[in-house]
């Protein structure tokens, strides 16, 4: 599954979003071994991703994802430590995608 990584603007982020995203990627890769490969890339508009990982600095989750097309398969991180939950959600999506 190809995951697009999209950040909010980070106006007053209370944690290191990049590091948290990297942790989510690593955890998702480990969790997805059984479910097939998962790859991550910086999200681009109209990218047609299997899922979108949206990394937000706060609970407002104001990142504009309207043009990033992941068919509603969107996983958010909005706080430090949120990578575990995000990785689990991505693994589930990868598993669903693998189903015939």
């Amino acid at each position: 599954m190809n995951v697009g990584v999209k950040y909010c603007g980070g106006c007053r982020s209370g944690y290191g979003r990049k590091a948290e995203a990297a942790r989510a990627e690593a955890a998702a890769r480990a969790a997805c071994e059984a479910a097939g490969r998962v790859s991550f890339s910086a999200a681009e508009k109209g990218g047609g991703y299997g899922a979108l990982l949206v990394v937000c600095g706060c609970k407002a989750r104001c990142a504009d994802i309207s043009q990033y097309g992941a068919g509603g398969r969107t996983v958010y991180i909005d706080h430090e430590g949120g990578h575990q939950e995000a990785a689990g959600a991505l693994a589930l999506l990868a598993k669903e995608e693998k189903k015939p």
Partner: protein
Amino acid sequence: MALMTGEQYIESLRKLDTQVYLFGRKEPNWVDHPIIRPSINCVAMTYDLAQDPEHEDLMTATSNLTGRKVNRFAHLHMGPGDLIKKVKMQRLLGRKTASCFQRCVGMDAFNAVFSTTYECDKAHGTNYHENFKNFVIYVQDNDLTVDGAMTDPKGDRGKSQGQQADSDLFVRVVERRPDGIVVRGAKAHQTGSINSHEHLVMPTQAVAEGDADYAVSFAVPSDAPGLFMIYGRQASDTRKLEPGADIDLGNKRFGGQEALVVFDNVFVPNERIFMNGEYDFAGMLVERFAGYHRQSYGGCKVGVGDVIIGAAALAAEYNGASKASHVKDKLIEMTHLNETLYSCGIACSCEGYCTEAGNYQIDLLLANVCKQNVTRFPYEIVRLAEDIAGGLMVTMPSETDFKSDLKVPTPSDLTVGEWCGKFFAGIEGVTTENRMRILRFLENICLGSSAVGYRTESMHGAGSPQAQRIMIARQGDIDGKKQLAKDIAGIKD
């Protein structure tokens, strides 16, 4: 053209023939001048962050005119969401630079001129809106920085434009030709003017019928013939000229910039004219620009405030006072004040409305309340920061003394630097240099060169306090509120 990087922006400035005067002489290499360069670095940050995936959601937008990706500083706000993102972007940049990053005036001018030219054309049958749209597309496609130039020197404040002893004290049209106009006058306190590729000039106040030549708006390149700038000096600015200066600067990399911009018979071609005598629209343009700019301060100063609060907390920590209840309470108060400013910036954005031209204007009452608070709260924030920092912030020896290896001929046989290190140490585990760095940062923002941007600019930028009070009086609906009281009190007259 793709969005520029910060480095490309700096290189683009070198290609301009901008005429800059500083300390009584013409400065040919103003881009690398140690007094000017920090302000250029600040604007460069508006370019670099737009390239960063971690920040592009705020820093870029899709142009409503071309559909292309543009820097948000060149964008027309097409809804409350854009207005909110503008404020968030400004807070982000304040946090990254702890300075005025100067590019907001252009953005605020674009939005004000865009809507005003539309309505002016409708009333007068002029073609300014099309002229202006073409200018905005040029700015967006070339990712330019533009100085939104409004404030005239104004001379005798008790007299109107045409009553001044010197007619040049307000920018005016001195000649009308078939191919354009010639303008003369000056704009004072121009933030980021030297760093800008273009100047977008607007009237400074409402204009009466008899003064129609002062109702003029136009854009010219910063190196247009007849245009020159005289750099505004800042407190402690010559510290930047000291060899090897670093710690004593407080903020070595970033800073703000203002200048006097003089138009000595500058020619403006017809396609760059956005107002030419339509005095009945001068007031609208001023009010709209001021409204946007008063919103801006609810973002930029908040970002700088974030850094000041952090610095005050660090100073307390290095002093060993971070657990004192009064210090904690002061940090809470600083945060409360700072977030109140942000709340106002966000609120006036949420209540934004669509203009006839299609772009969005902020809520004028809330924007003026925002700026009125900005004329006060930063002063209280720096007062508390000084309180927490302690007097050492202004009594410390220089960086040169701290680094000096000159032996002092006393029994201990220590150097000047060693004596400084010994007696200015704070808590264990923190170097004296780090303590000095944070105190110098606070000195710079509280009363050094950065105080221009954080304090006096908060007072007078986007209009002095009384200007907001006039707008609050106009927008405050006192009659409506009197009726509310009458209805509830049962007064029927």
